[in-house]
């Protein structure tokens, strides 16, 4: 069920703007502030991290989107860019870093390895996508994705933040008291990570026969 929000008359808004009075909603200005100062975690796993660095350098200039402040500590970061292959040895650390980030937090899975295991999918030590353990907001395909692709993913995330309602059933996770902000860290089992995936975040795709 969607609640119809009270809309301001556009003509009145224009008239007020001419007088130097700007009107907005609390939700609008709150999300506008959040979307333009997303601080990513300085966290590179493999090849894609180099393209992530390239995106933050002068030519592609991630600073245009308010995201040049790469924080080395997860406690100061809003966005985790999972850039590279997540191996089974590294997966618990990635989940733990995600748990250490404060809400609201977002995840971009960058590159084929982070979204599915990519070219190394058949490897015995490679996790087949980080979305098995943590919720991912934006997936970027590519091996590695170009810096422009990362910028596009970033703009997609900004749109998502912009459109998040602060009230109602669709409000984001950090405004829901009972929603989890930490996810269980997998452990090393006899043959594989235990559990192999987090069922509240990821279910294996159902095959649909035509």
């Amino acid at each position, binding site marked *: 069920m969607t609640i119809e929000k009270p809309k301001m008359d556009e003509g009145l808004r224009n008239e007020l703007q001419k007088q130097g009075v700007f009107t907005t909603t609390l939700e609008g200005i709150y999300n506008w502030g959040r979307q333009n100062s997303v601080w990513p975690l300085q*966290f590179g796993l*493999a*090849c894609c991290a*180099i393209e992530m660095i390239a995106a933050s350098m002068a030519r592609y200039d991630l600073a245009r989107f308010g995201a040049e402040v790469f924080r080395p500590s997860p406690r100061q970061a809003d966005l985790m860019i999972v850039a590279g292959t997540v*191996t089974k*040895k590294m997966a618990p*650390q990635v989940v733990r870093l995600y748990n250490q980030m404060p809400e609201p937090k977002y995840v971009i899975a960058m590159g084929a390895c982070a979204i599915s295991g990519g*070219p190394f999918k058949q*490897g*015995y030590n490679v996790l087949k996508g980080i979305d098995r353990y943590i919720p991912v907001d934006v997936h970027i395909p590519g091996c590695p994705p170009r810096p422009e692709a990362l910028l596009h993913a970033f703009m997609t995330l900004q749109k998502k933040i912009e459109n998040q309602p602060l009230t109602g059933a669709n409000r984001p996770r950090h405004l829901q008291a009972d929603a989890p902000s930490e996810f269980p860290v997998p452990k090393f089992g006899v043959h594989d990570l235990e559990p192999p995936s987090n069922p509240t975040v990821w279910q294996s795709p159902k095959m649909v026969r035509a």
Partner: protein
Amino acid sequence: MLPKDAGDGESLEVAMGPHHPSTHGVFRMDVVLDGERVVKLKPVFGYLHRNHEKIAEGTTYLAAMPYTDRLDYFCSLTNNWAYALAVEKLAGLQVPERAEYIRVITAELTRLQNHACLIGFLAQDMGASGTPLMYAFREREKILDLFEALSGARMMCNYMRFGGCRCDLPDGWLTQAQTVVAEFPRFIDEFENFLTGNEILMSRTQGIGRMSRELAINAGITGPLLRAAGVDYDLRKVDKYGIYDRFQFRVPLGDHGDTFDRYMIRILEMRESVKILEQALPKIPAGPIVDPKTKLRGFRPKAGEAYGRIEAPKGELGFYLISDGGPNPYRYRVRPPSLINLTVLEDICLGQMIADVVVILGSVDIVLGEVDR
């Protein structure tokens, strides 16, 4: 931080990594400290073990080529070359002259961007956050544009083939490359102007992390690290693989084996690479780019073994292949220079300050894709 021998308050065990901004990837150093001095250091690898060798043993020879791109992801073209060299030895293929020139040109361009970025990262490890790295990446982008025009990809070029290269140079590529190479010495001068005489850089690097000649030889160190320790060993001179015997260039050598020498060797090697490129670019002949005997489909080299090695920007990169006559290698082994250069990390870090460990690791030049494979 985990206090060791809790109570005496003297030695402290610190786990640096796997998520740490100075470890250049997912790498952990378990450091035992006495005050700020390092008493013990244990490198822990394997956070990026991607089963490269196992996957390559299960696929055809050609299908392993894109995986070599992802070994040392800064230098995909030199990785391609080392692997192609091993397979060419195994199958007895001859590389046409034009392809040899293209290989030399691309390999030296790779060396230029690798060393430039390494120095940028090294300066960042010393606290010059961002600016030197931005200069280095500005130059790297120019070289990546050349790679993209050549192979279609910025980083993962997958360009070389057994007995040659995948495709010919696009129109105007050589003039564009000549412009980039002609402008490059100006960048090195600018970089040196900012860094080499810098007091902070000198005091953070001179006499820090000294590696003796004997240690370097005994541990099997190769590449700029070995030459910084004063050993004259460069595979481009020793093996003369490809057509490196046709070019005039010198092998810079260090005197003290400290971090400053390792920094300086990279600067001098960039200057020598520019010299090689200036000689190679005008002389490139016309002709085919791939050996007509080579077969892309149904490629089955006869049973035997081969070891191909080149002087990659980080050291001796070798591929050891055993063929049993089948379509895929029976054994496929990579000799990664980064991993072997890392084995002396404890020896050169002992007795240093913890802040210098970061700089020493930066000067070793590791890429975790190659260390863990």
